[in-house]
């Protein structure tokens, strides 16, 4: 019933509008206005440009003030300070250019609107002024390119040996991170064919460097230390975005990427700075990756170096949490090493028969529970 009523009233309104439109045309024809080349509408349109311009500039200002409090605030990384500064410098220059050109663009239509008997100025070109407005943008662009190049090559330079290497892996629709572990501080190898429901990273346990790698549920970062994210994806393209750190790099299946940066503000400090006691850094996806693209959140925590080291020591290696799985996947020689590494009793096994494997894994399970 309601929809019928709405339909009828909308049709009525449209019919009335159409009648007004038709009557308007007919009266214009009667008045002879329709033959006129330029009518009063010309002045109204010219004036509207000025009105829209003035209101537009006020709106521009107010909306900026309203929105700027929602910007991301102080960058939490060394290079972020540089990119932010460059961004706001460029934006200031652009805003100036925007205001100058738009002022002309909106004021000229009003000033030079049609007037009966007036003649426009025949002015096809002026090489001098054309040269000026070619050269000025060229110089400004050169400046932008130069400073952009300085910042860009600084960000993209290779990481030093001392960098804290952390692997970030993206899949539909979650992030996972892998740390190299405290014993050898080296990430173990991986291969995509080793991925299964348990081993989501495809960690290769034939590589003993994998044994102490751990997979926490938060991305911990040390303040003031160089961090190198080694980024990959296992299904489609994703993109690592750490908005507060001004970090972004695609995660591409089959082509590992990396991003080096130095976090400068701990989570605790940031909570004080922006007055939000529940503040947390976040890892976000910025490349369309399917249904859950908007839901790939991973918490990020920045702590002081000492706290970071302590946290690392407390983490249990993945291999230890999944001892049974690892025992099945690793080679015979490495298995002993692996057991030793984890302080497990090594049983001399001339042959791998099923009973013994079972007993081993029981031992391991017992240990990981402890």
């Amino acid at each position: 019933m309601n929809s019928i009523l709405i339909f009828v009233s909308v049709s009525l309104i449209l019919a009335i509008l159409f009648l007004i439109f038709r009557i308007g045309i007919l009266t214009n024809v009667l008045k002879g206005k329709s033959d006129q080349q330029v009518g009063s509408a010309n002045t109204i349109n010219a004036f509207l440009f000025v009105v829209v311009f003035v209101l537009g500039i006020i709106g521009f200002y107010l909306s900026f003030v309203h929105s700027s409090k929602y910007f991301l605030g102080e960058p939490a990384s060394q290079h972020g300070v540089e990119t932010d500064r460059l961004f706001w410098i460029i934006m200031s220059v652009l805003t100036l250019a925007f205001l100058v050109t738009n002022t002309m663009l909106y004021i000229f239509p009003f000033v030079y609107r049609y007037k009966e008997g007036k003649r426009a100025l025949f002015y096809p070109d002026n090489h001098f002024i054309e040269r000026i407005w070619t050269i000025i943008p060229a110089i400004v662009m050169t400046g932008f390119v130069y400073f952009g190049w300085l910042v860009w090559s600084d960000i993209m330079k290779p990481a030093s040996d001392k960098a804290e290497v952390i692997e970030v892996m993206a899949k539909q629709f979650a992030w996972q991170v892998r740390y190299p572990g405290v014993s050898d501080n080296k990430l173990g190898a991986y291969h995509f064919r080793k991925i299964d429901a348990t081993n989501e990273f495809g960690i290769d346990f034939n590589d003993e460097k994998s044994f102490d790698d751990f997979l926490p549920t938060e991305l911990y970062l040390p303040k003031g230390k160089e961090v190198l994210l080694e980024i990959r994806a296992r299904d489609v393209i994703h993109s690592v975005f750490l908005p507060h750190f001004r970090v972004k790099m695609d995660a591409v299946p089959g082509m590992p990427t990396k991003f080096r940066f130095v976090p400068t503000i701990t989570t605790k400090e940031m909570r004080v700075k922006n007055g939000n006691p529940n503040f947390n850094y976040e890892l976000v996806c910025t490349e369309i990756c399917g249904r859950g693209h908007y839901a790939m959140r991973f918490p990020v925590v920045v702590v002081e170096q000492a706290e970071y080291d302590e946290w690392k020591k407390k983490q249990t290696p993945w291999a230890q949490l999944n001892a049974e799985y690892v025992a099945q996947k690793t080679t015979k020689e490495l298995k002993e090493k692996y057991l030793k590494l984890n302080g497990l009793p090594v049983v001399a096994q001339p042959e791998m028969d099923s009973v013994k494997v079972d007993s081993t894994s029981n031992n391991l399970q017992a240990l990981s529970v402890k």
Partner: protein
Amino acid sequence: MASVDTLHVGSVSHGHDHDHDHDHDDLPWIRKYVFSEDHKYIAKQYLISGILWAVLGGLFSLIFRLQLGFPNADLTWLKPILGEWIQNGKLDPEFYLAMVTMHGTIMVFFVLTAGLSGTFSNFLIPLQIGARDMASGFLNMLSYWFFFASSVVMLISVFLKTGPASGGWVIYPPLSALPQAVTGSGMGMTLWLGAMALFIVSTLLGGLNYVTTVINLRTKGMTFSRLPLTIWAFFITAIIGLLSFPVLFAAALLLIFDRSLGTSFFLSEIYIGGEALHHEGGSPILFQHLFWFLGHPEVYIVLLPALGITSEIVATNSRKPIFGYKAMVFSIVAIAFLSFIVWAHHMFVTGMNPFLGTIFMVLTLIIAVPSAVKAFNYIATIWRGNIVFTPAMLFSIGLVSFFISGGLTGIVLGNAATDIQLHDTYFVVAHFHIVMGSASFFGMLAGVYHWFPKMFGRMLDDRLGYIHFWLTFIGVYLVFFPMHYMGIAGFPRRYYSWTGFDAFSYTGETNELGEAIIKFADMNQLITIAAIITFVAQFLFIFNFFYSMYRGRVASANPWKSNTLEWTTPVNPGHGNWPGEIPQVYRWPYDYSKPGAKDDFIPQTVPFSETPESNLPNEVDE
């Protein structure tokens, strides 16, 4: 009218005197109204297809804008149309992505490439250079019908149960290659690729025709330096299309191989749906290089015709010659050339070599120079003009405004260092919707308002045009300007919702009811409302268009007192365009308000010998 009186008949230099204006009437209706080979009729076919697609593309954007502006609204009322894509009153997130994808694809290719270039290149090239028709009417007809076939295939994909392509209009593999990754990558993607293959064929057939016609069929006296800037723009656009679309075809073909034949051009080391796929050694980034090798020139394929149209309209209605004709031509050529060597600025953060990033940053920012020259030349053209605000003129000034606003933000995006933070955020969405989307759209509307009298022999209603302009102009800024702020705040694009992230929702503020204020919820609402109003305002135009086609005021031969050749034809030009011989051209098309001249315009067909009072020292008939 002066232009008609002075219709000067010279011998036609470029032979090819079709003279089929008399036998056209004998054609069966199917050759006249469906498979027509008349460039004017094909142009109208393109235009009306473009309008239909624009309505659909706009409608799709409203569907996803509803989700973004009113995330808590109950959308059950859309169930009769969208069916299972509405679950529990909410839009399905995958369908959201499908709508985003289809909106982009439709607007970029079907509306702003086919609808804009297809319409005006076809309509204006023969009329403005003084040709009877396109070089090959048959290829031209094929071009439209390939586009039509492409449209049908794309439209069918919208109705699939698994949905249309939903990997973004850039269709990056592996997402677009694997149905396991998103259901739209099944049949929907197959149809998308099929439709695009047909579309590319259409573009190439059209482009070949445009280039050939401009080079070979110019009337006597129509030298390249006397071509209207519209023709220069269409000519260069067609060349860009011919050089770049085949690369997209190659990319699409390789993607089809990867999808259907098990090759590994773009796929490598993938584990999805509980199994490791056999692909190894491919590179998803290779696809991006191929895609953007078309994708970036495509921006100019869309924009240059709009700029050409604007040049013509701004000069005519300012009653002034376009400022710096040669600089304008040079800028078009420079932009076209540069458009081929900047593509990787879309890929700064794909992990490609940083040195490559530096090179592409340099090349990208060079493009700002010819673009700035164009913007300044437009402003200099209206300076000290005698401006008549026809709706076409309003839309042209609107275009220049968008070209500046959106072009400027391109400078900060083209800088590799600042792009790191802005890449794939709403800042990018704001940038390209203003500079490419809206500017080109305004060029198209300006063109329709300006050449409607030549197309249909009647005038569009001015007042509806004014209302249409002001609603659309303000609407576009309200929709896209706030997106800059969201981009600076880091909001990623193609998100169904941002509330899962503190960074994109937490403000620490509460409203009067004590509810938490969500970051930019107000902006998103404003954008959606503005988008709806802007969309509805387009129906003023559509009504005006179809109403005036039959009931509009009858046009005079040269309603805008313009100089170009198309206004020397009869009000309703028949097949072959000029009833007698093709007029000869004696001067450039921008002799407006020449000192000493009787009228404030001198058509191209008036020889210098007839205007001794206004000739410049070097102006004599050859």
